[in-house]
């Protein structure tokens, strides 16, 4: 039985990998043949070599072996901004979702402010916080806040009313209903809001670092355009994407552990 499941999973992975393999083969073919100039699209081999050099060092290039330094800078900004967004979005979503009277005062304003695209805040953020970590953290907090807030609000507000009725008729008071029914029922929504918020955090991290800071994966991405280092550009795109996936997985694991502990 276990073997069957593993076989199924293997087959699924095999199917998923088909298209990327084909793309890489075509990519390798056209670049190695010299059909495309290498400054437009370097070969997979070059990109991989650059990536290895970037992470582990070994060449005389300026970026050689600097991955950890840039990564820690970006991680610091993502973690700080996401934490701000979550610490604001989750409690506010719970309060406004639970209490429509308070919600009526605050929700329209949040909805209205949401129609301003996140990028538009960049100049104002620069005026307020200057070039550097402050602006990045602010933009990340802003970008992650809305999805976290809205998912939490929706999850809390639209709990299946039958569950609330069941809780009340079994003896729950209004306050114990919040902890024993509403929050556990809203948990999946809160979790998906946090995941979405985290993915926005990586996006706004790049935006924030495009303003001209010295260190950070986004900053290096912009610098590598200035030096026309196409292999590094592509390598960094892959690194940032992979970090997004890894952070999502870590959070999912972390939250489901909490789900197992917290909800009983």
């Amino acid at each position, binding site marked *: 039985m276990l073997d069957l499941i593993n076989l199924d999973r293997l087959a699924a992975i095999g199917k998923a990998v088909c298209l990327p393999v084909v793309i890489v083969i075509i990519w390798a073919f056209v670049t190695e043949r010299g059909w495309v100039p290498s400054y437009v699209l370097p070969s997979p081999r070059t990109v991989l070599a650059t990536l290895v050099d970037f992470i582990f060092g070994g060449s005389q290039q300026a970026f050689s072996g600097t991955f950890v330094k840039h990564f820690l800078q970006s991680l610091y900004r993502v973690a700080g901004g996401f934490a701000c967004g979550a610490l604001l979005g989750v409690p506010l979503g719970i309060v406004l979702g639970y209490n429509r009277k308070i919600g009526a005062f605050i929700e329209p304003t949040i909805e209205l402010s949401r129609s301003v695209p996140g990028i538009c805040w960049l100049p104002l953020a620069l005026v307020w916080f200057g070039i550097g970590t402050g602006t990045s953290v602010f933009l990340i907090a802003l970008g992650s806040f809305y999805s976290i807030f809205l998912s939490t609000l929706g999850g809390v507000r639209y709990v*299946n009313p*039958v*569950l609330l*009725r*069941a*809780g*009340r*008729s*079994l*003896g*729950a*008071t209004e306050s*114990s209903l919040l902890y*024993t*029914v509403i929050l*556990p*029922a809203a*948990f999946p929504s809160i979790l998906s809001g946090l995941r979405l918020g985290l993915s926005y955090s990586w996006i706004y991290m790049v935006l924030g670092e495009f303003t001209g800071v010295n260190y950070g994966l986004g900053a290096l991405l912009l610098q590598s355009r200035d030096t026309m280092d196409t292999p590094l550009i592509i390598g960094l795109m892959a690194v940032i994407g992979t970090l997004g996936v890894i952070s999502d997985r870590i959070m999912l694991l972390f939250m489901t552990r909490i*789900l197992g502990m917290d*909800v*009983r």
Partner: protein
Amino acid sequence: MTGAVAADARVRTVPHSNDRPAKISFRNITKEFVSQAGGPAMKAIDGLSLDIAEKDFVCLIGPSGCGKSTLLNLIAGFETATSGEVLLDGVGIKGPGPDRGVVFQEGALFPWLNVLDNVCYGPKRLAVPRERYLAEAHAILEQVGLSAFAQHLPAELSGGMRQRVAIARALINRPPVLLMDEPFGALDPQTRVLMQEMLLQIWERDNRTVLFITHDVEEALFLGSRVVVMSSRPGRVLEDVRADLPHPRDFSVLGHPEFVKVKAELFALVREQAIAAAADSAGGIRSTR
């Protein structure tokens, strides 16, 4: 058993007489729902009065939309009447409470809690000591035949098992009143009969006051000590009969001639109301064109 049925099953000794003090009283209840679109208010129940004696098993039948569930929601405290009074032991209903256990149409189990934790939800809220409610929960799960499934999540159970958990969860609080809103409506016929027999066994043992909503005439007659037929919307009491089939009952009653005869009469009555309700809604469609 079946011999006794023939002698005793003068089911239509109408009207029902209240020989015991009322546990639940509906006094001249009217319930209107305001349309969200701003149209005229819809009258679900119109001037209904009904007394339910202690230890009665009242089955409420009627066509869809006749206000059966609304009536149950009023005693449960989920909704309030537009006018009139709903009394429990002579006191007005303030809101939901553990003195009225509710079993919903689709279980309404907490999906994140396993069977045992679902059953223990009530006593935990009521601060019952842990050793006591655990012992009671295991006893009740035994009674509904789910001891082996205590650690399972609701999603891992069949529909019938989920409803058994829901009944166990309501019973563990020992509510004097049990309110059941078409609890077996979504089950297949075989499971349904087993569930009905299980419910009868429980009721025959501890004689709670039960209000049971169904649109199945046979179910009403099989379970109830009294069957109340409601009219199509706006809901009024149309017929109120004692169902004096002897206890303990089992499925063999279903084929008895007297049972079949009364069932047919009640069915005809409900059918008339269903036709009226259908004509009413068809008229509504025509008038909007």
